C-alpha cells in the first residue's frame, strides 16, 4: 500500500499540473465569451480595461491554435545566396557566368549549401576559386570558409531584417526562423492583406541614386535597339535567373501574365512622344524590361549605362498607361546604405504621398557633393531596378535630405518607409512555399477537429466499457487523463495545435487503449487458467509489460523521426503522437494499476469485472 500512496500522489500531481496548464485556455475562452456577450461596446471596453491583466495573462498562457485553425500565412523563403556570391566575386568573365549558371541549375534540385556546390563545380573545372574571390594567395579551403561565413551572416541578417519589417507592419506573434543554409520560415497569423505582406517581405529595397544621361544619348540608344531583331519571348528571354520575379513568372505553367505575341517588332513596344519622352506601353512592360537585361542589348549601349523603366505608369489623355524609359549610369552615385531615417508623408505641392529620407554624415557630405556637381541635371531615384522619380537638381543639398515620389498610394509609401528603415536585404529573396488559410475555413477546421475529438473519444470509450465492463471504465479514466496530459503539454510548451495535431490526438485515443487491451487480455487468460483475481491482475501487468514497452518504443521512434524530417503541418501531428504515446505509457501502467489495486482491495471488482 505504501507503494500505492506514492503512485497516487504522482497521479494527483500529474492531474493537477495538467489542469493548471489548461486553466488559462479555459479562462481565455470564458473571458472572450463574456466580452462578446456585452450588448454595447462601452460595456465590453470597460470590462476589458477592468480585467486587463487577467485577460492578457490568460491569452498569453492559453493553448495556441495553429495557422490552419485561426487563419494565416505560412511562408518558406529562400535567400538567393548566389547573388551574394556574385556580389563578392571580382573579375567576372564569361567563364565565371557560365559556371554560376550551371551551379544555379544544379542548386534548383539540391538542398546543399550553394558555396559547397560552387566549390565542387570549380574543382571539376580545375579552376582555383582565388581567380574570382578574395585574394589570389588564398587556398580554396580558405575561400570556401570565408564564403560560408558570409552566407551564414547573410541568412541571419536577412532573417533579422524580415523580422524588423514584420514587427513594424504589426503582426501578432510572428514566427520567423532559419532552416538549413538558405531558407527562412515565416508564420504569420491573422493577416488580412496577403499581397501587401508578400511585397513587404520580398522587397529587397535596393535604393540607388543614379545620374540620368542626356536626352540625345537616350534617343540614340533606343534607335540602336529598335534596329535589333525581336528574338525570343518573355518566357525564354531572361537568361539571368537571378531576377527572382522573372524566374517565377517566366517558368509559370499557367499563363497568367499576357505576353506579347512573338514576332512583334521591337519598335512597336518602345515609342517616342512628340515631347521627346521615351516610353513603353503597359502590355509590353515585362517584355521590354526583360530585353533591357539581355547582354547583347546591353553591349550596344554606351559604356557604363543601362536602360531602366519607371515604377509607375503615366496616363495619356485617352487613359492608356505607359511607362517612361530612362538611360542612366550603371554605377550608382550613392546607395541606400546611407539612409538613417525614412518617413512617409504627403508632398507639399500635391496630395501625392512620398517618402522623405535623411542620411548619415558620410551620405550627407557625398550627397552635397553630388548635387552640387550636377545642378541642372536629372538624378534618378532607383528602387529595386525601377525608376521612382528623376528630379532635376535645382541646387546643392547640404543637409542630406532626399525624397522618393512617384508612389501610387499612402499604403505603398508606408511600406517603403518600413523597408527603408529596416534596411536592405543582403541578397534577393523569393518565396518557395506558401500556404494561406482564410479565417472562415479555419473556423470550419476547428469545428471539424472538435467533432472528431468528441466522436473519437465517445466511440473508443463506449467500446471499452462494452467490451471490458468495469475494467473498461478504468481504461476510459486513463484515456481522459491521457488527453489532458497531451493538451496541457502543448499549452505548457507553447506549441500550437493544428488540424493534423488534432488528428494525432484522435489517433492517440485509439492507440492509447492498446496498452490496456494488452493487460486486460492477459488478465483474462490468467483468470481462465483459474488464478485468483489479485494474482491474475499482478501477472497480467508484469507479463504484458515487455510488450507494452516494445510497442511504445517503436511508435515513439516512428513519431520522433517524423517530427525530425517532416516540415510544417506534419510536425504538429508527430508531436502530439509522441506526447500521447509517452502519456499512455504512464496512464496504462501506473494509473489503471492503482485503480485496480484500490478497487480489487475494496471488493468493488471481482472476476467478472474484466468482461
Amino acid at each position: 500500500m505504501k507503494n500505492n500512496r506514492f503512485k497516487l500522489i504522482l497521479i494527483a500531481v500529474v492531474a493537477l499540473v495538467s489542469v493548471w496548464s489548461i486553466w488559462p485556455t479555459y479562462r481565455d475562452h470564458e473571458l472572450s465569451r463574456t466580452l462578446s456577450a456585452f450588448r454595447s461596446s462601452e460595456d465590453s471596453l470597460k470590462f476589458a480595461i477592468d480585467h486587463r491583466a487577467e485577460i492578457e495573462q490568460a491569452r498569453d498562457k492559453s493553448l495556441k491554435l495553429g495557422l490552419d485553425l485561426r487563419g494565416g500565412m505560412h511562408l518558406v523563403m529562400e535567400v538567393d545566396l548566389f547573388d551574394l556570391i556574385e556580389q563578392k566575386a571580382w573579375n567576372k568573365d564569361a567563364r565565371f557566368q557560365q559556371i554560376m549558371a550551371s551551379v544555379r541549375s544544379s542548386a534548383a534540385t539540391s538542398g546543399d549549401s550553394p558555396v559547397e556546390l560552387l566549390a565542387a563545380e570549380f574543382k571539376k573545372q580545375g579552376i582555383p576559386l582565388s581567380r574570382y574571390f578574395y585574394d589570389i594567395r588564398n587556398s580554396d579551403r580558405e575561400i570556401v570558409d570565408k564564403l560560408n561565413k558570409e552566407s551564414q551572416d547573410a541568412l541571419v541578417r536577412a532573417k533579422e531584417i524580415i523580422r524588423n519589417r514584420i514587427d513594424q507592419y504589426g503582426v501578432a506573434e510572428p514566427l520567423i526562423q532559419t532552416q538549413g543554409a538558405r531558407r527562412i520560415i515565416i508564420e504569420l497569423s491573422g493577416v488580412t492583406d496577403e499581397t501587401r505582406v508578400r511585397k513587404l517581405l520580398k522587397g529587397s529595397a535596393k535604393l540607388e541614386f543614379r545620374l540620368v544621361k542626356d536626352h540625345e544619348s537616350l534617343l540614340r540608344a533606343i534607335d540602336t535597339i529598335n534596329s535589333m531583331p525581336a528574338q525570343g519571348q518573355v518566357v525564354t528571354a531572361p537568361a539571368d535567373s537571378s531576377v527572382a520575379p522573372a524566374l517565377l513568372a517566366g517558368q509559370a505553367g499557367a499563363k497568367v501574365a499576357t505576353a506579347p505575341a512573338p514576332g512583334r517588332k521591337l519598335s512597336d513596344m518602345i515609342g517616342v512622344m512628340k515631347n521627346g519622352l521615351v516610353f513603353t506601353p503597359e502590355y509590353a512592360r515585362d517584355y521590354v524590361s526583360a530585353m533591357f537585361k539581355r547582354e547583347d542589348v546591353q553591349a550596344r549601349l554606351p559604356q557604363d549605362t543601362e536602360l531602366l523603366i519607371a515604377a509607375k505608369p503615366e496616363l495619356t489623355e485617352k487613359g492608356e498607361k505607359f511607362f517612361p524609359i530612362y538611360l542612366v549610369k550603371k554605377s550608382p552615385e550613392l546607395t541606400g546604405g546611407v539612409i538613417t531615417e525614412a518617413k512617409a508623408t504627403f508632398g507639399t505641392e500635391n496630395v501625392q504621398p512620398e517618402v522623405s529620407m535623411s542620411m548619415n554624415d558620410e551620405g550627407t557630405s557625398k550627397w552635397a557633393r553630388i548635387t552640387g556637381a550636377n545642378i541642372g541635371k536629372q538624378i534618378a531615384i532607383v528602387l529595386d531596378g525601377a525608376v521612382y522619380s528623376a528630379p532635376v537638381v535645382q541646387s546643392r543639398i547640404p543637409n542630406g535630405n532626399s525624397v522618393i515620389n512617384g508612389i501610387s498610394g499612402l499604403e505603398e509609401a508606408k511600406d517603403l518607409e518600413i523597408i527603408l528603415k529596416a534596411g536592405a536585404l543582403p541578397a534577393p529573396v523569393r518565396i518557395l512555399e506558401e500556404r494561406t488559410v482564410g479565417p472562415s475555413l479555419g473556423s470550419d477546421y476547428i469545428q471539424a477537429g472538435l467533432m472528431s475529438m468528441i466522436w473519437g473519444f465517445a466511440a473508443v470509450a463506449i467500446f471499452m466499457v462494452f467490451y471490458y465492463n468495469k475494467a473498461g471504465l478504468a481504461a476510459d479514466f486513463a484515456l481522459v487523463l491521457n488527453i489532458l496530459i497531451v493538451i496541457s503539454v502543448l499549452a505548457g510548451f507553447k506549441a500550437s495545435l493544428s488540424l493534423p495535431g488534432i488528428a494525432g490526438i484522435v489517433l492517440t485515443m485509439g492507440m492509447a487503449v492498446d496498452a490496456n487491451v494488452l493487460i486486460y487480455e492477459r488478465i483474462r487468460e490468467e483468470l481462465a487458467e483459474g488464478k485468483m483475481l489479485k494474482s491474475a491482475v499482478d501477472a497480467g501487468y508484469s507479463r504484458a509489460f515487455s510488450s507494452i514497452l516494445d510497442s511504445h518504443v517503436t511508435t515513439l521512434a516512428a513519431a520522433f523521426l517524423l517530427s525530425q524530417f517532416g516540415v510544417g503541418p506534419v510536425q504538429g501531428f508527430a508531436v502530439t503522437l509522441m506526447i500521447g504515446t509517452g502519456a499512455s505509457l504512464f496512464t496504462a501502467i501506473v494509473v489503471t494499476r492503482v485503480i485496480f489495486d484500490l478497487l480489487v482491495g475494496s471488493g468493488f471488482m471481482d472476476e467478472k469485472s474484466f468482461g
Partner: protein
Amino acid sequence: MRLFQKTNFNFIKHRKIAYAISLLLMVAGIVSLLVRGLNYGIDFKGGSEVVIRFSKSVDVSSVRSIIGQAGVRGSVKQYGMERAVLLSTDYHGETADLKGLITRALADRMPGNPGEVVSVQAVGPSIASDMKWAAMKALGAALVGILLYVSVRFEIKFATAGVLAIFHDVLTVLGLFSLLGGIFDFMPLEVDQSIIAAFLTIAGYSITDTVVVYDRIRERLRGQKPSEYERIFNESMNQTLSRTIITSGTLMISVLVLFIFAGPAIRGFAFAMFAGIVVGTYSSIFVAAPIVFDWQQRSKTAIKLRGAS
C-alpha cells in the same frame, strides 16, 4: 464480452496461402505503380492548390470553364466540403496574380454567387524535391531504426521479418493509392506529406503488432526443443489474436472518425491509415511470424533470444 475466445487456427500450416496472397498484393501494387504511377500532391511535385468557396451551391463544370477561359491551366474538382471547389495547377509563381485572376474571372462571370478564395497553397519545385528526399530519408531511417531495435530486443531473424512485414504494408498501401488515385472526387488520394506521416505511423503500428506476437513467442519458446516450434508459434499467435483484433478495432474506430469528421484535408491520411491498419494487422500474423518460422526451419538451430520477461 469476448469475440475471440480460445481460437485454434493453424496459421503456420496455411502460411503458404498467406504468402501467395501477400505476393499477389505486392505484385499488383508494383504493376500499378509502374503502369499508373502515383498521383503526387503539390508537396512533392510543386504547383498551387486553391480552395474557392461559394455562397451558394455551384456547378463544378461551369467553374471549370470560367477558370479555364481566364487562362489558368489546371484541374477543377469538387472539394470535399459544401459549396467548395479545388483548383490544382502547376503554376508556382506569384500567388497574388493567380488569386486575382480567379477572383476577377469569377466575379465577372458569376456575379450572383460570389466565390471566395479561402485557402492557397503553393510549393516551388526545388522545395518539393527537398520534401521528397526528406520523406524517403525518414522512411529509410525508420526502417533501419526498427531493424536495430528489434534486433537488440529479439534477434536478427525476428527483426528482418518484422521490417519485411512493414515493407509489405507500405508497398500495399502505396499500390492501393496508385490503383485508386484520382478516382474519387471526395478523396483524391494524392501522395503528399500527410501520406508520408501515415506511412511512418503505419510502420510504427505494424511493428507494434508484430512485436506483441513475437513477445508471446519468446515467452513460450524458452527451453523448448525446435521440434515444438510449430505448435508454439501457432499457440502464441492464437493467444494474441484477440488483443491484435481489439487494438486494430479501436484504432480503426479513431481513424474512421477522422475520415468522417475531420474534413477533406485529413481524408487521404485517414484512408491510408485505415488501409495500413488492415494490412498491418494481417501481416503481423500472416507474414512476420511465419517468415521467422520458415527461416528457423532452414537454419536448424535453436532460437537464442535476448530480452527478459
